[in-house]
């Protein structure tokens, strides 16, 4: 399997070359082109656990998270192109199996099918934040693709760092985190428009994005006529 990330920057996409018999998994709907030999299967299934229940769990997590599996069938190689919905960058993380990665809400784009996917719903902590505190947890050794709204910056954390909830792309689970307020008091924090932030602790890799898609959506939505509820 070879992965090439094309058009880095505003409109990045990933082209995955599959050898015969290989498979790749992505968020459903991300596929925009494929050679005819590739078999596409849309399921709610993740490797290991999953099935329909897994899909429902993902729906409850606030995201219709269904997966497409691309399989180079019939003993021939093939290619598949996947792209995120929003403008922005795509990045490959080569997981070595020593740590788990957590991808924020819409940041998970795809992964080798040898990786195990699960969802983590942030429950009360998530509800409080008002953000989709829904993580895709990725485990194993293999390639992981994440997408961002804007550019991706990587920070190697050793100690503590604070990131706005809307700017988190993905992080290693060797980092612990808590959702907390940005300012000195809750009131000041909300009035200042910073809302909630994630405070990371420990040592590990953290990917952040330059722009907050939720903020952009809110801006656009306010300019559009109301929809039927």
């Amino acid at each position, binding site marked *: 399997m070879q992965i090439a990330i094309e*058009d880095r920057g505003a*409109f990045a996409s990933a082209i995955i070359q599959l050898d015969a018999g290989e498979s790749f998994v992505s968020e459903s709907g991300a596929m925009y082109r*494929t050679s*005819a030999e590739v078999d596409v*299967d849309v399921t709610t299934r993740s490797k290991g656990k999953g099935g329909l229940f897994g899909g429902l769990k993902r729906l409850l997590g606030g995201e219709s998270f269904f997966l497409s599996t691309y399989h180079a069938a019939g003993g021939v190689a093939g290619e598949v192109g996947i*792209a995120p*919905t929003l*403008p922005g960058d795509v990045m490959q993380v080569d997981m070595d199996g020593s740590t788990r990665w957590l991808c924020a809400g819409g940041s998970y784009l795809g992964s080798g099918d040898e990786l195990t996917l699960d969802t983590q719903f942030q429950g009360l902590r998530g509800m409080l934040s008002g953000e989709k505190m829904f993580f895709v947890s990725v485990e194993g050794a293999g390639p992981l693709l994440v997408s961002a709204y804007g550019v991706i910056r990587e920070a190697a954390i050793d100690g503590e760092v604070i990131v706005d909830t809307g700017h988190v792309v993905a992080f290693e689970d060797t980092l612990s985190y808590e959702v907390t307020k940005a300012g000195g008091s809750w009131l000041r924090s909300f009035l200042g428009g910073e809302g909630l932030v994630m405070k990371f602790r420990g040592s590990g890799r953290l990917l952040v994005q330059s722009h907050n898609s939720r903020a952009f959506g809110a801006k656009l939505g306010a300019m559009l006529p*109301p*929809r039927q509820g």
Partner: protein
Amino acid sequence: MEHRITNGPSFAILEATLEPGETLVSESGAMAWKDTHVVTETSTRGGVLQGLKRKLLSGESFFQNTWRAEGKPGSIALAPGSAGDIIAHDLDGELFLEKGAFLASCEGVTVDAKFDGLKGFFNEGFFILKCTGKGLLFFHSYGAIEAVDVDGEYIVDNGYAVAWEPSLSYKLTRARKIRSFLFGDQLILRFSGKGRVWIQTRSPRVKANWVHPFRPVQQANRN
């Protein structure tokens, strides 16, 4: 005519310098800036009927502008409505464009709308533009453009193919191999034969779907 495409693939614009008397045809509304002696005649190229057909069938603009440099060389910049890339294609024969992808052409290129839907796919509005003639043709995308040389069969998600050569046969079809209880109706473009297809890396429709949940919700009528 000299031309250059700058700021691609994210925010491409086309800058052209016309020789005296030389013309360039553009989609109406695409002009961003120009010299004062580059003048226009807005017309329904090919007559009103042709123009109406383009508008109604393909979502392409009814009017196309013809720009002419009067007396001396003049510059004009054209910018598409969406952020993305522009491809300059040296047309000699035919090329198919996804509706809305036409940006500009030199005279000698004609643009016509063509319906190629299958029965039952009317709602999907599978109308395309057929460009014929000889000369430079400029088309644009939302997102970056990738050129794929097909030899055999290739599948592109509906709404992502920007342009393709007539040597390819194409078919809008339900995704046969895409098995799903959710997306049974997913439409794809299936190309076969030998030729080049240009594919954009983002879809305006998918983006619109993404924005939709952010719209305010209409309050119930209280009467």
